């Protein structure tokens, strides 16, 4: 019945980036296997290979020992592999039954009509067999997200899937729905289905999986039995020890308080508080780092500071003034620079050339655009200066942003933001998906700014990075600062424990209440694939 999945030496290259590097994966039949890793670790790419969306550069996929060649999802579906994407593939105005049977409608009258009663019956039977609670006649747009997910699972089962891949299945669910989902997974494996689910949440992997494989930077760094591991071990595997970057930390004079955040609560897109009463202040010449596993409120915190999201309570002050509800433009004008975590979504307009991209955020700057007219020759000079100063390659201001590699895109954004003469730089995962050379370059520039007395808020899930660059380091867990430490006096192991939510001194995990126990996710950054690196 069940298919055992074997991936042998899967390598998937995209122009300029290796998304999967010689990954082996073995999944036992009838088990739940969690694929754990940071965003960008290559989890989704690997599963897209298994689902036939990508053809691997090298390596083989075997099901039940049989080598398979999937040219499209259709091939994978025919071989019994189903995938439930993060963004549901459902047609909103159609009913549950219509969605599940789409493309495989039972026919009658020689194919001239859909046999609607047969379709409905099939769905009711299927739902009964796996104990799903869905209304076959409801329109998809009228049902909850949790129900929509069950519809997606039913869709895969209706097509005869024996192996189900779920991509970040809990990201969009409420805590109750997560519980229900895990019950569903249990029922499915009990009936012989094999399940692989992608997650970056340690707790969920431990809770739902039988076995956990951890990916980091496109490589598999380990497979462990869920019963024989700890969150700390997993956190270490996930974050890991990277190429040691020799950051000359040095010391800098700290000046006045540039920015302060007091007791802010920020809700995520679902209206659940993602940041829960966080306070800190940053002085000039200081790097304040925030470490933590992705999805613990970092994105929402950064969005609140930069003005992309309004906090529900609390106050944000910048250079002595209350900017809690100030606009982006006011904050930019006041000297706040922002390196966003998703460069393609928020950092650049991919179809614009570098001249135009260099103007973004400065379109009201009288230097470049006086009286509502853009001075293109100055703007071009501005872009050329960034390209020159930040070693953007190819050095061509007319190149469109999408033609640059991820590292060069990032260097251009960093250059544009750092050239604003900022008082505060908010850098969110500034080196994510960037090659080693560019990482070092960006780190050096950050430290240069610090030397000049600029305040820096650095958010990163790379332990090496935050530890190496920060003067003070806060560890965030479930929207709260677990502790603020001196990074030089703290070991990686201690940080790993903090990141897993273990408070210093109390020797145990905080007993979170039921509603707080769900780990947060980042709605803006759900795509864990190498798409971001493709030119």
């Amino acid at each position, binding site marked *: 019945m069940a298919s055992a999945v074997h991936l042998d030496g899967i390598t998937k290259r995209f122009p300029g980036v290796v998304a999967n590097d010689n990954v082996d994966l073995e999944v036992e039949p009838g088990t739940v296997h969690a694929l754990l890793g940071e965003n960008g670790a290559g989890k989704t790419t690997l599963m897209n290979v298994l689902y036939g969306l990508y053809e691997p550069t090298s390596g083989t996929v075997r099901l039940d020992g049989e080598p398979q060649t999937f040219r499209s999802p259709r091939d994978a*579906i025919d071989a019994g592999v189903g995938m439930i994407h993060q963004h549901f593939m459902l047609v909103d105005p159609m009913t549950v039954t219509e969605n599940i049977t789409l493309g495989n409608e039972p026919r009658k009258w020689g194919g001239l009509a859909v046999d609607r009663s047969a379709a409905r019956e099939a769905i009711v039977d299927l739902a009964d067999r796996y104990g799903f609670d869905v209304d076959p006649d409801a329109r998809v747009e009228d049902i909850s997200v949790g129900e929509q997910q069950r519809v997606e699972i039913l869709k895969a089962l209706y097509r005869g899937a024996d192996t189900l891949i779920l991509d970040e299945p809990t990201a969009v669910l409420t805590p109750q729905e997560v519980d229900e989902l895990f019950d569903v997974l249990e029922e499915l494996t009990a009936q012989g289905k094999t399940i692989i689910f992608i997650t970056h949440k340690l707790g969920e992997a431990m809770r739902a999986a039988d076995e956990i494989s951890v990916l980091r930077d496109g490589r598999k760094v380990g497979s462990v039995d869920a019963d024989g591991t700890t969150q700390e071990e997993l956190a270490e595997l996930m974050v890991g020890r990277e190429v040691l970057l020799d950051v000359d930390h040095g010391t800098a004079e700290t000046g006045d308080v540039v920015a302060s955040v007091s007791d802010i609560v920020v809700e995520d897109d679902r209206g659940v508080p993602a940041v829960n009463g966080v306070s800190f202040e940053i002085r000039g010449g200081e790097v304040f780092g925030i470490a933590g596993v992705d999805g613990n409120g970092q994105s929402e915190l950064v969005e609140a500071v930069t003005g992309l999201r309004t906090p529900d309570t609390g106050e944000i002050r910048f250079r002595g003034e209350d900017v809690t509800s100030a606009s982006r433009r006011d904050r930019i004008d006041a000297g706040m620079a922002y390196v966003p975590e998703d460069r393609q979504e928020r950092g650049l307009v991919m179809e614009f050339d570098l001249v135009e991209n260099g103007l973004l955020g400065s379109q009201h700057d009288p230097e470049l655009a006086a009286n509502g007219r853009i001075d293109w020759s100055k703007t071009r000079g501005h872009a050329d200066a960034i390209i020159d100063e930040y070693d953007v390659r190819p050095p061509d201001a007319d190149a469109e942003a999408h033609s640059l590699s991820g590292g060069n895109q990032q260097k251009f954004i960093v250059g544009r933001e750092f050239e604003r003469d900022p008082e505060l730089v908010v850098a969110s995962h500034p080196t994510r998906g960037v090659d080693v050379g560019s990482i070092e370059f960006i780190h050096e520039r950050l430290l240069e700014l610090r030397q000049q007395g600029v305040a820096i808020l650095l958010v990163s899930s790379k332990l090496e990075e935050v530890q190496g660059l920060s003067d003070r380091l806060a560890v965030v867990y479930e929207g709260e600062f677990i502790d603020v430490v001196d990074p030089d006096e703290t070991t990686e192991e201690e940080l790993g424990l903090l990141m897993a939510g273990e408070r210093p001194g109390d020797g145990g995990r905080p007993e979170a209440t039921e509603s707080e126990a769900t780990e947060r996710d980042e709605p803006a950054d759900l795509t864990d694939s190498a798409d971001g690196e493709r030119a």
Partner: protein
Amino acid sequence: MSDADRSEGESLLKRYSTRALVAGVTIASVVALLLAGLLFPDSLAGTLSDALTSRNTLASALRLSVPIAFAALGGIFAEKSGVINIGLEGLLIISAFSAIYVADITGGVWIGFAGGVVASTLLAALFAVVTIGFRADQIIAGLAVWLIALGLAPFASQVIYSSPNTPTVATTGSITVPVLADLPFFGALFSASPSVYMLFAAVFGSWYVFERTAFGRWIRASGENPKALDTAGVSVTHVRYAAVLISGVLAGMGGAALSLDLGQFTGNGPTMVNGKGFIAIVAYLFGNYNPVGAFLSTMLFAGLDALQTVLQLQGIGIPRQLIRITPFVVVILVLALVGRTRLPEAAGEHYDTEE
């Protein structure tokens, strides 16, 4: 449980109430008018209700409806699949001319009819290749279809017949059902051009395709969430090509019916099509992409036009231009104020199969 029930009830109410309101008000005012006309036969209301209940009004409303409703059905197929076909006007023009030309050279009315359909389908195929194959902007390509036909048809007529207007050929005539045709008012339904009956069949057929067949569901999915259709293993490209070609066939039937009803193509100014393709777009929007709704909206617009003509004969002059803009005013009101027409989610967007 009760919460869920209530919210479902509310969403049902939201979905249908405004449209129902419009229909209700229309029916109520017509009934009121007829009553007033019955009570005071000599008043304006009397004249109006006379005109409204006249068999001629229905007959001419039906005749005016044919090209518009055919084009509207075609527009529904294309747009539901995700391709906005604003070139319907052009398809009507090209088929109206081609039908006369083919009928003229072959001497067969129905061969001419088929010729019109083929011409329109070919132009729609060109539109499909440009928008689906080469991913051109649908609006611009649709305007091009209109402008090409608007220039080409009168030009061809000029070259062939030395005049933008063609000579007259035989018409499609009419089919009369004995006895029933003598009914007051509704008799018009039983003594009409064959194209009227073809339209009835097309309305039902389109409804059936969308509501009952797998292909109809694929068209809907292709316009709402093409990715869902693609991952279900159905080619979005094939579905969209098919839908646009069907829109060409249907619009072609409308154009051919229009010119063959008169036996002549007139190509002066905006040609004899004169905006019917655009009213068709309004009609299917007003009809919320439902074939039956689109047909009823067409009848409403055509009915107003017919009524105006009848009243003109009775000496009550309402400027024709005023009547002609009614559909557009109505659609702006419907789209802006009522806002119940829900465009397919992916309408106008290209679909990229490679992920």
